[in-house]
């Protein structure tokens, strides 16, 4: 964008400044207006309690949306078409969510209803997520929505209460980092591999205090789903938000969705959205550059998302590290994972393959995985779960027959939700089990106490499910 004499600004600056109710002052943070507040059952109950204690109401129920995803079962429906909730604590939490939404007038996508799903899947899917908006949720992967050129970030429960009561947040202005990915991806290499490579490069704290803007030829070439996968994991590099400048790919995705603007309002919105991209000459506080041509499928070997490497590489050796605390961290991770320094991960047996989560559970993820699985079988001894991100994704996949492909191969086809990404709902690894997972966190116990996670793309996950051992998907493509 050129600026006609105005000082050039980044995408982030434009969105930030447009939402300032009150600028940052020496003694107080900026007050930022929030356009959309997404609420789920796990991080909201204590916020509603605070509102009740103070006699407050929700300022803008019409800017607020509730869904159920984290503690919800994804087991198939019973004969009556109901998804049974057998965990009493989860059932109680869901009831509290229903009551809170009803009492405060917030629309809720209740368990099993046609629009329910993972909070970061349903926002974009319904057209709530639009360029230039501020979007928050009591969930760190809210960064996902930045793929549309929105400023979107996760907040804690106290802040959930702030937004419910005032539609505003107190925020200190973050710094900006340009994450440029030049070149083109080779076949078999995906958006997930880009973001795993970015995090491996900067480390899991490398982006703390920054908002990322992803740019460059490889980002422009991605679908909206791919861009969401990348923005989703910004937080795994420490950045609360990641953004991509909106373009025709964005507008084509948003157009026609239930809550997208229509008619004259659409034209007006479009004109405004076209002014959002970073101006020529705008500067960032920091920059990191990657070459997409040089990327291969990535996989993690350790217990945080920064411990990632090309799938063909060998597990690093703690003794090669200079920094003592890094050495200890790697050593601890490898002991937890029961891996040896120098070992190859290719060919390693796994017990579970999980395709799902707000990183990779959208229709394109399922299509790619299904293409791989079609006509093949999940290896003996491997449990494969395919968990669509939303009821809409599930319905679309079923309309395309993808569920039959997965089921014929021996995979489990589930209801929508977070499932084994966070293992709150009974979908979990057993102690010592290995999983290749398309989710975003490989922390100790994240997918079940004692479980061991390798993060990878849906293609790598599908290839691994078929062979029963960690497999480079490029070997199976021709």
């Amino acid at each position, binding site marked *: 964008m050129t600026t006609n004499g105005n000082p050039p600004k980044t995408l982030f600056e434009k969105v930030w400044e447009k939402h300032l109710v009150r600028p940052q002052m020496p003694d107080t943070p900026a007050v930022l207006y929030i356009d959309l507040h997404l609420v789920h059952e796990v*991080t909201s109950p204590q916020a509603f*309690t605070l509102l009740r204690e103070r006699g407050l109401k929700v300022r803008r129920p019409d800017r607020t949306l509730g869904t159920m995803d984290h503690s919800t079962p994804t087991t198939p429906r019973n004969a009556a078409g109901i998804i049974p909730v057998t965990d009493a604590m989860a059932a109680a939490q869901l009831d509290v969510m229903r009551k809170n939404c009803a009492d405060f007038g917030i629309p809720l996508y209740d368990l099993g209803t046609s629009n329910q799903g993972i909070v970061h899947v349903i926002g974009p899917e319904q057209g709530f997520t639009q360029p230039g908006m501020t979007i928050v949720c009591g969930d760190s992967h809210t960064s996902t929505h930045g793929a549309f050129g929105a400023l979107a970030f996760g907040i804690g429960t106290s802040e959930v209460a702030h937004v419910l*009561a*005032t539609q505003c947040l107190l925020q200190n202005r973050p710094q900006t980092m340009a994450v440029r990915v030049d070149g083109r991806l080779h076949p078999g290499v995906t958006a997930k591999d880009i973001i795993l490579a970015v995090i491996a490069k900067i480390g899991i*704290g490398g982006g703390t205090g920054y908002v990322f803007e992803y740019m460059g030829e490889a980002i422009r070439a991605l679908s909206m789903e791919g861009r969401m996968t990348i923005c989703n994991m910004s937080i795994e590099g420490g950045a609360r938000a990641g953004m991509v400048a909106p373009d025709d790919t964005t507008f084509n995705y948003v157009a026609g969705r239930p*809550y997208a603007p229509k008619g004259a309002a659409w034209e007006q919105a479009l004109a405004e959205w076209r002014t959002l991209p970073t101006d020529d000459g705008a500067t960032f506080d920091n920059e990191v550059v990657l070459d997409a041509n040089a990327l291969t499928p990535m996989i993690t070997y350790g217990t945080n998302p920064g411990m990632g490497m090309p799938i063909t590489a060998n597990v690093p050796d703690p003794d090669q590290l200079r920094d003592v605390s890094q050495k200890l961290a790697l050593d601890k991770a490898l002991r937890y994972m029961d891996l040896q320094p120098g070992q190859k991960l290719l060919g390693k047996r796994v017990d579970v393959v999980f395709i799902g989560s707000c990183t990779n559970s959208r229709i394109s993820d399922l299509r790619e995985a299904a293409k791989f699985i079609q006509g093949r079988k999940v290896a003996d001894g491997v449990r494969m779960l395919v968990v669509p991100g939303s009821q809409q994704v599930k319905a679309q996949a079923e309309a395309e027959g993808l569920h039959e492909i997965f089921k014929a191969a021996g995979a489990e086809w589930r209801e929508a939700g977070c499932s084994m990404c966070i293992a709150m709902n009974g979908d979990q690894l057993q102690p010592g089990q290995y999983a290749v997972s398309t989710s975003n966190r490989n922390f100790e116990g994240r997918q079940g106490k004692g479980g061991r996670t390798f993060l990878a793309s849906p293609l790598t996950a599908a290839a691994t499910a078929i062979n029963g051992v960690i497999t480079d998907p490029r070997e199976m493509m021709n």
Partner: protein
Amino acid sequence: MEPITTFTGRLAPLPINDIDTDQIIPARYLKVTDKNGLGAACFSDWRYNADGSPKADFVLNRSEYQGAAVLVGGHNFGCGSSREHAPWALLGAGFKAVISTYFADIFRGNALKNGLLPVQVDAETHRQLISLAEEDPSAQVTVNLEAQTVTLPDGRSVEFPIDPFSRYCLLNGVDQLGFLLGLDEQVAEFERLHPGRVQTTAS
């Protein structure tokens, strides 16, 4: 909230980098709808064996660290999920402050809103505090929020950063919501000028 000014307490060393909020409080404990009872589950997977018995060598289970008020964690403390259950669990386990060389953003913000002080110190001071805690579990430090200092047993004081607004709220025992509620007119004016495109209640 109770005002916080200064307190003195013993240290518990946990010198591990990148301690994520899934370790501080594993997700399976997040099915609660209040803030209570999370202290017992704090660091659950590092603290208990599969049968629920305590792991004798984990710092929170060692008798000499019972009652410690300051957790000394490694670099990038509190990364990962936004769960405010993490500071609730640490407070429930008896901590009033965490010392690290670096805190993840969301954790820092959540901690400050609950009166758990994230005390960021330089690497050298951090090393000293870890050895101190390991060698002499009875050693005490004094955290002074007013002065933004932590004072070691040898009398040396080290400053730590904290944003002025959080500091003000903690010193005065007021929460941040009150400030936002006081801006009602400005917010209403903003809403008048920026009507917004999305209406979740429309169908």
